[in-house]
């Protein structure tokens, strides 16, 4: 197990994958959060207030986003890494068989794809907590609805803190920036709903 972790650490270091993974994590997490927000507000406007329908719709949509994220990232990363290896081989006038560069490139594609695939699903499940509570009959729907919007904005704030730490800037400013995006999306969705309901 220790050897396995050591190997992974080495692959991460050699493939310089951490930076890319952070990017995919935030990007796809953002996708997940706003998708859930969109579906939930859309359902509310369309007068669909059955939590089980909302949960099933959002989770299946986020799984689809996850699969899309996984496959898109995997193929994109693989192509980029293969290109890099081809350039190296040409520069070095050699053909790589199985070496640490090949292995870490393979690892990097897989690792970033997993993060890109799992991130929207995780975020979706986190912000769907109020809906789960409603489906168990613990809280009324309206509280779950506004709670979900609140949790989404809070999750975006946490994601902003994470980005603030990555950029080594003020984490609160980053958090607020991200929350504002969530707030803007929410207001826009309500506005669209009002327009359609006219």
């Amino acid at each position, binding site marked *: 197990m220790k050897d396995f972790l050591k190997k992974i650490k080495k692959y991460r270091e050699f493939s*310089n994958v951490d930076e890319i993974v952070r990017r995919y994590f935030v990007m796809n997490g953002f996708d997940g959060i706003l998708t859930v927000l969109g579906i939930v507000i859309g359902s509310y406007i369309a007068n669909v207030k059955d939590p089980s329908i909302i949960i099933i719709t959002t989770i299946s949509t986020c799984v689809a986003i996850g699969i899309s994220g996984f496959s898109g990232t995997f193929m994109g990363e693989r192509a980029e890494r293969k290109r890099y290896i081809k350039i190296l081989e040409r520069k*070095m*006038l050699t053909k790589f068989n199985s070496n*640490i*560069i090949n292995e870490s490139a393979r690892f990097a594609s897989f690792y970033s794809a997993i993060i890109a695939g799992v991130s929207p699903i995780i975020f979706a499940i986190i912000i769907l907590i109020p809906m789960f509570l409603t489906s168990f009959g613990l809280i009324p729907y309206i509280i779950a609805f506004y709670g979900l919007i609140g949790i989404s904005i809070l999750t975006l704030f946490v994601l902003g803190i994470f980005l603030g730490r990555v950029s080594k800037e003020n984490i609160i400013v980053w958090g607020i920036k991200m929350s504002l995006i969530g707030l803007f999306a929410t207001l826009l969705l309500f506005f669209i709903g009002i327009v359609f309901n006219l």
Partner: protein
Amino acid sequence: MLRRIILDVLKPHIPTIMDVAKEISKLKFVEGVHIHTYNRETKVESVRIAIEGKKLDFKEINKVLEKMGVSVQSVDVVHAGKRIIKESPNSY
């Protein structure tokens, strides 16, 4: 019985020369490694690797280098026998 070899190799920037040195020194028969970069290009760099030991196994060394994505261009210096002969500047 190989005692000391100097290789001229071409390698990508990553793994670094520190990684390569550590990997070579893990070999049982290796007593010391010295790596010196003498040319850096955009994606690759040329380095000179000196390896010392009691009974160097070139095949094993080459295997490690291949595993690290390093390609041996030439074997520039070889020392073999019971003792390492000190090189004089006029020997080449």
